[in-house]
């Protein structure tokens, strides 16, 4: 892979100026990833951005360029706007849920002996490896009326849960699926902390809540922000979980995009929705980057 082109084009040159050869090699190494990323990642995203400003001709099914913003105008209708807002709310809520459940877990794991840590980490990670689809589907069985969770709730409160196929069941499914992605970066951040710091804070008279706020939380911040990004950003475009646990009723923006593309075939409008989602996410990412400039330095 490396030797062939160098000996073909650079044999003479290489003898005179050995510096030249690594440059050939360097370009060769860059080619696959650059070509792949440009052609199959950057170009398609640019393409839908351009087409999101086009219109579809209903007679010929051709797409005209007119640099119209009408696709974004239709987006302002209450149905789509409501769905986008619901997606943002579900993403924000489930990210918060992941942080509230994941933080104590990650902290607790770092305070254990290495062997126990390994077992607890496996407890978090192994479910993450197993079929995402089947695990999500399993919640349908668990949450349905007459299912185990409903029976438990009925026994305790006398009321049925009626939670399946609502935004709540979507949220349960999202938190469930993304939780390990929150726990792991927080764990990585806290694992580097010298436990003496906690003792020092206690010795200096900090109460547990103050210890948490002034010592644990600042130290965990890079991990927490990484977790917020890898949970919150993909969760906003979630498609499979609302499809299974939303029962087709309470849809998220991802479902509408898929619907516009694969069922309706209105590509300009579908593209406008996808580009809007991307735009919202970029704003969120830039905001988070201001909060944590050191994020990229990890």
């Amino acid at each position, binding site marked *: 892979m490396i*030797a062939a082109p160098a000996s073909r084009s650079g044999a003479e040159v290489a003898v005179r100026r050995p510096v030249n050869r690594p440059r050939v090699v*360097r370009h*060769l*190494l*860059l080619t696959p*990833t650059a070509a*792949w990323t440009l052609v*199959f*990642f950057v*170009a*398609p*995203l640019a393409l*839908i951005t351009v087409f999101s400003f086009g219109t579809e001709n209903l007679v010929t099914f051709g797409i005209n360029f007119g640099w119209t913003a009408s696709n974004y105008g239709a987006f302002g209708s209450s149905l789509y706007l409501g769905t986008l807002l619901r997606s943002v709310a579900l993403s924000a809520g489930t990210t918060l849920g992941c942080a509230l*459940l994941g933080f*104590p877990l990650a902290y*607790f794991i770092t*305070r254990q*002996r290495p062997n*126990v840590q*390994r077992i607890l*980490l496996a*407890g*978090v990670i*192994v479910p993450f*490896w197993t079929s*995402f689809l*089947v*695990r999500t*589907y*399993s919640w*349908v069985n*668990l949450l349905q009326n*007459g*299912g185990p969770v409903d029976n438990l709730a009925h026994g305790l409160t006398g009321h049925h849960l009626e939670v399946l196929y609502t935004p709540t069941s979507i949220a349960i499914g999202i938190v469930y699926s993304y*939780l*390990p992605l929150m726990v*792991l*970066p927080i*764990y990585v951040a806290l694992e580097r902390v010298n436990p003496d710091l906690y003792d020092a804070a206690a010795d200096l008279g900090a109460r547990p809540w103050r210890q948490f706020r002034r010592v644990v939380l600042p130290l965990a911040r890079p*991990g927490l922000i990484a977790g917020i*990004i*890898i949970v919150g*950003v*993909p969760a*906003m*475009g*979630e*498609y*499979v979980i609302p*499809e299974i646990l939303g029962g087709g009723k309470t849809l998220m923006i*991802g479902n509408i*995009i*898929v619907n516009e*593309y694969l069922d309706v075939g209105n*590509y300009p409008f579908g*593209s406008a929705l996808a580009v809007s*989602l*991307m735009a919202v*996410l970029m704003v969120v*990412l830039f905001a988070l980057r201001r909060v944590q400039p050191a994020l990229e330095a990890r």
Partner: protein
Amino acid sequence: MSFRRHPVAGTMALVVIGYLWIPILAVAVNSLNKSSLMARWGGATAHWYSLAFHDANVRTGLVTTLEIALGSTALSLVIAVSGSLWWRRAPARARAIYDALVYARIVLPEVVFATALFFLFLKAHFPLGIVAIIIGHSVWNSAYAAVIIQARLIGLDPAIEEAAADLGATPWRVFRRVTLAALLPAIIASGLLTFTFSFDDVVTSYFLGGSSSSPLPIVLFGMIRFRITPEINSIGVMVMLFTVTLMCAAVAVFALVGSTGRGRRGAFAEFYGR
């Protein structure tokens, strides 16, 4: 176990781990459940497993999935290994662009990416099917693989390669015997990881498969949406056992050889924490 010192965090930790495992246990129990409503236990049966074994859609789906996973893993590794080797010596600004694109491929919602690639293939008259899915998977899989391989590269001291060169090894030999040898655990681990991701994927395959090729997750997705049957649970148990075995192999490879000098535990966390 310092459970008594952290009663609140400890209780929460155990509850959360329970939350993560209960659906998996439910799948396993229901795969043997005679009651097809799956709300309560109706006695044990192996019926759903034999149904899954004899389901033609499941069989062809499995073969398609394996082809896609193998193809996209191979492609991803070529892209990630060559890219990471370039990245190691690249100027800072080029590196930052490369890093941003790796990061974007991991974080961008799959729906947006799959839509865009579907549209590109449509406009370019590129046929949808297995090849299209392999290309799609390799775009995000190569980013995951790159992250793992780069973590390993950071820990590789260039002095070792310089020493090999000083001792008379040709550049190709240095690459093969030092660089590639050092990267091998990361390559194997990321290969197993990307294989698993590809094996489990729904969204990209759903868009790029067209009407001709349905990998196993798409078959399952169709079953879940249109005809709920406990067969899903038995297929699920088998798929889970398969992917868990693969991932355990990945961790074993990574943990045994160690990674970036922060010990096994560091390697373990780093492997997932990025």
